[in-house]
């Protein structure tokens, strides 16, 4: 009964927003709303759904709200074109390099811009960024002690050629599709300022990050906000904004109210349909739905009965209907997905047409489902016990799953747990069916972490998120990874996905876009189709219109 579930939450939100309207005035207000506050009239205020800044260290920032902050402070050698991921363009590098092979190794030579200044830090003055910073930064990203992304940088060495040239050497040659994300403005690809890191130490740097980006860290009020100031020496030009304030407002209604009142300029929105309807009437507010969002996939555990029978999995696939799942979300926020790798955002995904042509879209077909169940000996159905997170796009989907399987005598018993707990338990192989919401930077990561046998939960060599216990496409994943020719690599990824779809180990469900609302006076200064930074991206061109 998804409609039942949705409406009460909407009503609750309304009530809560009224309460918080008052509370905000009392508690947060003076900082947030007073025109005389530190934030000048030309400072953009972003309301975000988190309690506080996790870390300012780009090599550790993984949470969405932390990614937004480091995106404004740091650059990569390359960058996803603002608002237009996955298009790549040069950032700190003067041009996009082409690889060459030297003694069996792949060498990418980066010529750096010479006009990039490291921001002044608490212990260090501003200075010119050179190859030293780049080498230091990429080596730091590869260090498991200092980086959360070290795994992505194994088999890679970085050498300084001269002050403004850096060679990145890969032991195993890979394609540009796989390589560029490693050196783009994402995760480990962010370039930190060496002198600042060394002066501040790891923790100090996380508290006061120093980079080369359009904004620089100013101050932080724990649990409240982080203030960023415009970097007037930014190499692409002085930002039009004076600064950015990231305000931590975990409660959606509260953010919503503040936006409507004009106390916030941009907020992280909601994918709920009700809010969409309500906000549509507000002239002063504009809602942006954009990528990259996250892919929702239903994983079937092929390791135990009854889902170890391919016919059962096929039956489940035919029994489910993506449109039914989608009806629980606001129009446009969620799109049907047919391929584990989202074709719209990443090379290597299968388009709807391709999947449909091969009959792997498993178009809803009750009769087929029943027939297959009967064939497998389950005409009387079976019972499954699954845990779900309390978060909306988990719980709503699990509930919809339960409801859709009921007519086939498949009884799904749901246990709603904390989001964190759900993650723990599904990794302990509890669920026969796992609904998982995630974004991965490229096809290789998607396929490796979800479908390579090494990633199998509990039993894999490095247990990760292969909830399906699937091991049939290992060689294809590895072949694709070592292919340097992008077109061929894409073909192999596609074949891998065809195989796994044919085996019905996963049912790609939806693609969930990001939803941000902004005051109509906010101009991001760039197109907004997809952002790897998971927020609308503020840069030197972003401005507030009066």
């Amino acid at each position, binding site marked *: 009964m998804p409609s039942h579930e949705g409406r009460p939450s909407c009503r609750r939100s309304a009530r809560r927003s009224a309460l918080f309207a008052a509370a905000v005035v009392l508690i947060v207000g003076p900082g947030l709303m007073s025109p005389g506050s530190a934030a000048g009239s030309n400072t953009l205020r972003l309301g975000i759904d988190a309690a506080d800044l996790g870390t300012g260290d780009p090599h550790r920032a993984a949470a969405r709200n932390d990614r937004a902050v480091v995106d404004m402070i740091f650059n990569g050698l390359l960058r996803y074109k603002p608002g237009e991921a996955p298009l790549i363009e040069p950032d700190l590098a003067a041009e996009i390099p082409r690889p060459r092979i030297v003694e069996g190794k792949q060498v990418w030579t980066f010529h750096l811009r010479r006009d990039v200044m490291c921001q002044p830090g608490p212990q260090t003055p501003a200075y010119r960024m050179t190859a030293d910073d780049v080498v230091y930064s990429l080596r730091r990203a590869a260090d498991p002690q200092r980086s959360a992304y070290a795994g992505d940088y194994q088999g890679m060495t970085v050498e300084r050629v001269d002050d403004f040239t850096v060679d990145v050497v890969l032991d195993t040659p890979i394609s540009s599709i796989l390589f560029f994300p490693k050196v783009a403005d994402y995760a480990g690809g962010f370039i930190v300022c060496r002198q600042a890191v060394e002066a501040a130490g790891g923790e100090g740097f996380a508290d006061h990050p120093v980079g080369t980006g359009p904004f620089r860290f100013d101050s932080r009020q724990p649990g409240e906000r982080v203030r960023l100031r415009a970097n007037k020496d930014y190499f692409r030009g002085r930002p039009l904004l004076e600064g950015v304030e990231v305000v931590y407002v975990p409660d959606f209604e509260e953010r919503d109210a503040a936006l409507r009142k004009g106390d916030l300029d941009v907020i992280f929105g909601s994918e709920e349909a009700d809010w969409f309807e309500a906000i549509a009437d507000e002239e002063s507010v504009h809602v942006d739905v954009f990528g990259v969002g996250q892919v929702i996939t239903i994983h079937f555990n092929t390791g135990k009965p009854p889902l170890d029978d391919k016919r059962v999995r096929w039956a489940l696939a035919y029994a489910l209907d993506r449109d039914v799942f989608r009806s629980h979300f606001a129009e446009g926020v969620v799109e049907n997905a047919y391929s584990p790798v989202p074709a719209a955002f990443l090379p290597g995904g299968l388009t709807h047409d391709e999947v449909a042509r091969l009959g*792997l879209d498993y178009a809803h077909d009750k009769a087929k489902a029943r027939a297959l169940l009967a064939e497998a000996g389950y005409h009387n159905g079976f019972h499954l016990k699954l845990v779900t997170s309390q978060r909306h796009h988990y719980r709503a989907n699990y509930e919809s799953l339960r409801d859709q399987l009921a007519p086939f005598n498949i009884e799904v018993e749901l246990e709603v747990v904390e989001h964190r707990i759900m993650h723990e338990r599904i990794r302990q192989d509890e669920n026969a069916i796992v609904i998982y919401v995630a974004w991965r930077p490229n096809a290789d990561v998607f396929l490796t972490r979800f479908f390579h046998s090494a990633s199998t939960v509990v039993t894999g060599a490095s247990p990760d998120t292969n909830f399906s216990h699937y091991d049939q496409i290992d060689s294809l994943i590895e072949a694709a990874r070592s292919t340097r020719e992008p077109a061929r690599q894409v073909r192999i990824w596609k074949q891998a996905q*065809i195989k796994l779809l044919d085996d019905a180990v996963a049912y790609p469900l939806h693609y969930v876009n990001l939803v941000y609302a902004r005051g109509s006076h906010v101009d991001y200064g760039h197109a907004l189709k997809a952002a790897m930074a998971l927020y609308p991206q503020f840069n030197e061109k972003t401005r507030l219109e009066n």
Partner: protein
Amino acid sequence: MKIYGKILLATLPLLLIAFALASGITFYLSRSALQDIAEQWLQTRSLEALSAARDQAEFLEAYGLNTVEASVAQAQGDAGAVMSGIDIGKQGFVFAVDAGGRLVQAPDPSLVGFDVSGEAWFDEMVKAQQGQISYRFQGEPHLASYHYFEPWRWYIVATDPESEVYGAVNRLGTYVLALGAGGSLLIAVVLMALTRRVTAPLAELVRGAERVGRGELDTTIAIRTRDEIGILSRSFNEMTQQLRVLYGRLEERLTTVVSHTPIILFSLDQNGALTLLEGKGLDTLGADSDAVIGQPLSALFGRSPEILAAAESALQGETVNSVAKLDDQIFEIWCAPLVDQSNAAAGVIGVATDVTERVLAQEKLRRQAEYLAALNETTLGIISRLELDELLQAVITRAGQLLDAPHGFIYLADENESEIRRKVGVGVYEQSVGYQLHAGEGVAGRVWQSGEPFVVNSYDTWEGRVPNPKYDGYIRALIGVPLKSRAQVIGVLGMAYDATSLRVFGREEEALLTRFAELASISLDNARLYALAQEARRRAEEASELVVRKNQMLESVSTKLSKYLSPQVYSSIFSGKQSVELSSKRKKLTIFFSDIAGFTETADKLESEDLTQLLNHYLTEMAQIALRHGATIDKYVGDAIVIFFGDPETRGVKQDALACVRMAIEMRERMHELAKTWRASGIENPLKCRIGINTGYCTVGNFGSEDRMDYTIIGGGVNLASRLETNSEPGEILISYETFSQVQDEILCEERGQISVKGLAYPVATYRVVDSYEHIGAERKVMREEAGSFKLDIDFDSMSPEQRRQAAEILQRALARLSDS
């Protein structure tokens, strides 16, 4: 037909045929080449498509996906995408047909599923599996290349419509034909225009040439082009211009010639009337040309029948050359008939050249030549005669022939030059040879006195004549010319005509005889010189005989002298290398002294004659040996001999010393042999020599007084040699260290202790000569070794026992140290 027509008729059909052929060949070759290329191309494309399918199938196989229907479908789709991307021209494409004859892959998706199983070409493909086909598809002919792909049971076909394959060449065919036709037409028109352009100026040239032929030299052709025709026209114009100039110049020259040379140019019409009369020759005739024009030729040359006859002959058509006289003038006549254009006789042209002066000059020349020939012959006749009398006779004879004079004489001056005497005579003068005249007497006396020629053409009445009844009244004309030796008059040549001759001596005769006399004078000088030379030769021969006699005497003297001198000294003196005068020089010599031990006792026992014989025998033998070794024998003093080496000839100090020692050895041996001979003649004790040899500096040269000189040596070295000799035992050769050091390599010597010599402050080491190594067949015992920093040099022979002991000790010490290290 003119050139224009000929060129067109010859070239146009050829052009058309060539064009047609070229078009046809081009079209045919292009089409077949295109088909080859297209087939090749299609096959390549088809293989490319096949390899795309193969790649995919291999991929599926490799990953075990070939049983997964969706994977295979995807792979086929991927292969299809590659095939669709293969370009074949603009209209060609790749498609695939499954085994059932259904299109499974085509660039146009609407064709997928199309059934071709009923087509004949599909059957052909099924049968052959791969190859080329021509087929119709959608009504249009196509070319195709196909391959069967077993894993998917696909026929992969690369195809292209023929219209595209041959499109270019089909279009080309039309183009080529149109181009051929158009080109032929164009070339025809161009050719016509060109030939017209070429022939028009040619025609103009032809007309111009005809005008020039008619004599219109002012003809010019307009130059319109710069090509060969233009050049021809220009050349034509230049030629006519040249002709005009040449003609003008010719006319001018003719006028000049006619008006400046003594000729008369005339022409007659066919009736013989004068039509032209010009020339400087008219001046001498005194004729007025204007007056006689129109008159017959006889009005001018009436007094010369030869000229009239020549003109008459020319009128008859002959060309005449002749010589004619007119009064005192002589003319050369040339007459030729004139003809008009139709070759009919139209008159006469004639030239009369006045050659009077030339003829006279030739006559004079002829005479002079005769004189010269005579003079030449005469001169040659006499110049070779060396006997004076003979010469004088020849001169007088030739002079007579030269002047055609029967009488003549030659006087020559006496030795004291007080008078001249007639040496020869011809004619009346033959009888009175020896007749004498004084200066100034008669013609000859006058000429002798003055040195100038003298002519008397009426001798009868000349007061200077010397009366002579023989020819008074008979001789009419007389000439005398001087005969000279350099500037001095040495005689007179005279010639005379008698009363029977009409001739006299004119200037010519005088000059002629004078010149002849000059030549005759040279001959006279020659004859006198010859006589002198003969005399000188005679005297020289007498002197030479005297010299030979004196030389013979000298030779006998020197032969006697040689016995008392060393041959070197002798030859040195007699070859002039060293003059015999008091002089000396210091040289390093090897000096030899010897005497016979106990000679005095032996001498006492012998008779004087026997002694002389013995001594002479001994000295002669020794001297022979010495000379064989190149020694200089200084002197014999009784039985003692002093010899030295090194002067006047030296072979170097060492060789001199060696030669000396070897000589000494040979002398000693010879003495052994002689001992037998002497024993036979009663000398009981064999004679033995004592020999001393030293090498040292001596003064060598001629010593003595101006009247008596001795070639000898003096000095310390000589004294030492003498001391060595007196110190030596009989039969022993004792040499000084100085000599020993020069000869030790070849001569075995023994040390014999030291002696003191008067005048030397230090004692002298002496050595006894044993023999030469060569003789005793032994080598000198010397040991010389060298290796790196080690040197060994031992002369065993020259070592005393003490020295040997010392050396052994040293070597043992060295050996001990060597084995230690």
